[in-house]
Every structure is written in C-alpha cells, then in structure tokens.
C-alpha cells in the first residue's frame, strides 16, 4: 500500500476508497496525520484494514485510529460495524484478549505528601496484585461459581463484597453484559480462567500509579474527581487465559462456518459467522461471558489496589480512598445503534484496540457523564504520559462512537528486546523517579517507550479530528508489570 492510494480529506482524516481492491465492500477511513501515517506504513496494518473491509454485512467504513498497528488478521486500532442480525461477527476482529480494557481510579492524595511512600506503595501493589504468565489470581472459584462470574461480571464482584455500587455505575455496561452464555464457553476455557481471576497477566498489562499532571477541561475533571497533583491508578488487563481460549475455540470452529455460509476471506484469522446463525449466536454468548470475566477481573484488581492504598496510607492521612473514574473495554463486539446514511440502525461494532467514546447524552452513561461524554482512558507506553479524554458528538457520527486506545506499537516485541536492555530501562525509569516492579526484565524491554508511537501525538490527532476532547494528562510514578 502506498500513500498515493489514499485520499486525504483533512489534516487528520484519510480514506482508502473501495476501488483500491476488487473485494472491498466498504472504504477504510483513517484518523491519522501524515506523520503517523508514514509510521503506520512500516507494517502491514493498512493491508489488514483493507482485508477487514471484505467482511459480509459491513456498513459505513472500516475505521482506523492513529495508534493503529499490525495485529492477527484484523489491525489493532480498528473498528468495523456489521448490520444486525444478518451481518457477521468475527472473533478475530475482537481479539484474543476479549474485553482487554483499562480502569482508572482516582484519589485526593497529593503526590508531594505521598512521594516518600512510592517505593513501599509499588511493593505492596505488587504483593496484592498477582502478575506474570499463567499466574494464579487473588481468589480461586469453583467451576459452578465461575458460571456466576461469567453471567454477572462486576455484579458478581459486588455481591461478594469486592465492588461498590459506584464502581458498577462507572463501568462500561455497568460491568455486566446482557446475553452472556456460560454454556457456550468450553470447559477448557473455564479451567484456564478459574484460577486466574484477580490477576494481571503479562505482556503489555500493568498497574500504574500516576499523578494528574495537567487539566485541560476543569469542569469534566471535577465531575470525574481528577485533581491536579493527586494520585490515580490505572489497571490494564483483560480476560486472561479464559478469553484466549474462547477466541481460540471459535476461530477454530468458524473455519468450518465460513465454508458452510460460503464466506470468502483473504485471511483465515478473520473467519466469521452471521450473527443470526447458530455459530454466531454461540460466539456472542461466549464472548460476552468472557467479557464479564474481564470486568470481574479488573474489579478484583481494583479491590486489591484499594487494599494496598489502605495499607500504605490509612494511618498517615484521612482521605486515602480510591474512587472509580471509569472502566472501559478496548477489545469487544457490541450491539449498538448508530446513524448510517442518515438512518438509525442496529449494528455490531467490533472494536479491536479501540475504545468506545460515546458523546454527551448517549444511552448507557451514568447521569454525571451524560453531561460531558464518556471518559476515554488512553494509557501511554511505559514511562510516558497517559490521557483522559471524553467522547464527543462527532465520535458518534464519524467513528461509531469510538476512539484510540493507547500509543500503538511501532516495533515488534522481538525487535524491542534486541534494541533495549530491561535492566538499563529499569534504571532509566527509576532515575526519572518512576518505581518499577517487573516480573521479567525481557518483558520490561518489550514494553520500552521506544517500541511505541508518541502517545501525545496520537491524542492530539483524535482531539484535532474532533472525535475526543482532552480532559487531563497523567504522569507515571510507579509501574507494576508481569
């Protein structure tokens, strides 16, 4: 793919028209600057976006965000909406880590008054929040109890004392997706998941303590409870081995489904089935169950983070509590109603490495966020800023209510390990005042800031395009990684 194949619409918007390749059903719409586009063209993600346009039942355009990079089959940072009920659902367009997402907790603890405790806080967070590949979680549940987790998500956590009503209200879908069907989740997936609930995992998952560094929208920040100079916590993880197994199971099953329904695709990782087919319904039930597992997982980690804050700060200050700002998912297929060609239609919005970014007044938001739009949490790469944005009316009309999800890789994990030494990176981060607890030094190197795009540039792009609005910037002070 060459830049000449693309039509530039504005400084931050481009299009790959349907005549680019004979099998495209819809165009690709890109929210990128020329500089970011040139970076994106170093991998195969644009070809993957074009491949995604061949999914049956697509409406509008396949949308890609400025943090786009190459994934398996479907690009990360991609959004595709298929018409309900005859359009398809594709597990590969949602990803292996179903409902991977970010939770943001905030406090009124001033960093300056807590600076001396950061080393202890990092250690205690690391103690309470298990991390690493295959690591067991904070609790273990029976297979029968796990079915309740899969059915109810964060509501299960609430019933068992791990969540508050306020947490649920400030979680996408209140942390519990309707239509989850635990019977559609294989026993193998359940066995993988039941010991991992309440754990962080490895890869790019992390818990990060940040300081609110700058406020861009005072009113929105006040409503969210974000105060300049105060501590926040981000929790980035998903559905662990359970979600991976669900995706594995259905990508395998759908290899036969595409033959049955006569669907021809350029990449087998994009396999799909009509939403109203038995295969499509089964996957939707399983995917929602895995998503509920992820909501409960982040809720348990939030519970553990609160325990850590209590242990470190409760005897030192009065207001040490962490309140929830929001919990968002960035790997999911959701049934939503959007305007397409002037008509409101029900669609399944596949977001893979893309955040829902509903604007003011949108359904499903708690009353305080209906005024300002849904919080969008954009974690940066390790050691760089993270951002809190809000969705806008423009995101509803131009990107199926979606926005970017992070900085986006520019370097593969293996390349990052060749170029960066984990021990050196840790020293650099510590020298900048960032406390690091990492289970693996090679794992730390894989997540080096140089392996990612500049998150500030990504955020400026979506802000300038009008699909999100800046609220606050966060600066890291402690990172816990698997």
């Amino acid at each position, binding site marked *: 793919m060459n830049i000449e194949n693309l039509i530039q619409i504005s400084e931050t918007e481009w299009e790959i028209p349907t005549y680019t390749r004979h099998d495209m059903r819809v165009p690709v719409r890109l929210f990128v600057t020329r500089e970011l586009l040139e970076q994106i063209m170093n991998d195969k993600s644009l070809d993957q976006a074009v491949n995604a346009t061949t999914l049956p039942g697509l409406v509008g355009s396949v949308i890609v965000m400025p943090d786009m990079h190459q994934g*398996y*089959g479907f690009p990360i940072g991609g959004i595709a909406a298929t018409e309900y009920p005859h359009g398809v659902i594709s597990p*590969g367009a949602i990803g*292996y880590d179903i409902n991977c997402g970010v939770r943001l907790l905030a406090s009124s603890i001033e960093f300056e008054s807590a600076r001396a405790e950061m080393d202890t806080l990092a250690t205690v967070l690391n103690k309470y929040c298990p991390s690493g*590949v*295959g690591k067991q979680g904070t609790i273990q549940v029976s297979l029968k109890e796990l079915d309740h987790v899969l059915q109810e998500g964060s509501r299960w956590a609430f019933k068992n004392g791990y969540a508050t009503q306020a947490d649920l209200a400030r979680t996408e879908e209140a942390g519990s997706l309707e239509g989850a069907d635990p019977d559609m989740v294989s026993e*193998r997936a359940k*066995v*993988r998941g039941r010991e991992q609930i309440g754990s962080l995992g*490895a*890869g790019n998952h992390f818990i990060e303590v940040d300081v609110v560094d700058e406020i861009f929208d005072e009113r929105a920040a006040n409503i969210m409870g974000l105060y300049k100079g105060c501590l926040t916590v981000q929790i980035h993880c998903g559905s662990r*081995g359970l979600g*991976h*197994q669900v*995706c*594995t199971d259905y*990508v*395998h099953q759908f*290899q*036969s489904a595409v*033959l049955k329904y006569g669907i021809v695709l350029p*990449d*087998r*990782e994009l*396999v799909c089935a009509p939403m109203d087919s038995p295969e499509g319904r089964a996957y939707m039930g399983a995917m929602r169950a895995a998503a509920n597992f992820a909501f409960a997982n982040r809720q348990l980690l939030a519970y553990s983070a609160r325990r850590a804050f209590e242990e470190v700060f409760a005897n030192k200050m009065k207001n040490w509590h962490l309140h929830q700002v929001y919990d968002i998912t960035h790997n999911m297929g959701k049934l939503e109603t959007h305007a397409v060609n002037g008509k409101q239609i029900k669609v399944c919005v596949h977001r893979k490495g893309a955040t829902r970014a509903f604007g003011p007044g949108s359904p499903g938001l708690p009353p305080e966020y209906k005024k300002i739009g849904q919080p969008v949490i954009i974690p940066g790469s390790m050691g760089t800023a993270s951002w809190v944005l809000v969705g806008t009316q423009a995101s509803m009309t131009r990107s199926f209510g979606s926005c970017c999800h992070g900085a986006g890789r520019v370097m593969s*994990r293996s390349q990052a390990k060749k170029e960066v030494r984990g021990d050196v990176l840790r020293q650099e981060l510590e020298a900048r005042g960032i406390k690091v607890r990492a289970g693996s030094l*090679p794992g730390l190197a894989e997540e080096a800031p140089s392996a990612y795009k500049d998150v500030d540039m990504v955020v400026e792009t979506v802000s300038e395009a009008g699909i999100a609005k800046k609220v606050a910037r966060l600066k890291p002070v402690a990172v816990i990684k698997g």
Partner: protein
Amino acid sequence: MNTLAGTVTGQSPRVKRTFKSEGPDVESLLVAFLSELVYYQEQENLAFDAFEIQLSDKQISVNMEGTQIISADKAIKAVTYHNLRVEETMRGVETVLVFDV
C-alpha cells in the same frame, strides 16, 4: 514451539496425553493440535517431546509424551491462523505460524 518459548523440562516422571480433533483441512488441524500444547503448557505446566501422529485431511489423532516444565523464557498464549501456511518442500512439510505471546 518449545524452542521458541525457551522451555526447559525435567527428566521425569514421563506423562502421556492423547488428543483428537476434526477440522476442514490440515492447517486447522495443526492449529488445533498446537493450541492443545498451549493449554497443557499453561494449565498443567507440561511440555511434550515425543509424538505419535495419525493425520488425514480432516482428522488428527495424537499420542504424546512429555514432562514437567522447569522454566520457560516466554509463554505462548495462543496459536493464530494469521498468515498460516503449510507446504510440502524438498525437506518435508514446512509451516509458517504466528503465535500470540
């Protein structure tokens, strides 16, 4: 796969497992089989090094033997179909596979 993950295994005790699957072609059978190994690696901390494989166009049946993993540099989380290729070459059968790590 064991080499890619940097898996180090013990000598004993040896354990045996069987695996059967169906799929539309050899590519899907390969992914299903390797996904089984991912499951054992994560769930039972097992790596396998001896295999007896019966393969047809749409079915695979495997008897395998292995031991406990002592250490691994990297865990493979899933086996993808992305850019999947199985080819007969002069040296036998070669495959291109992408793992999710």
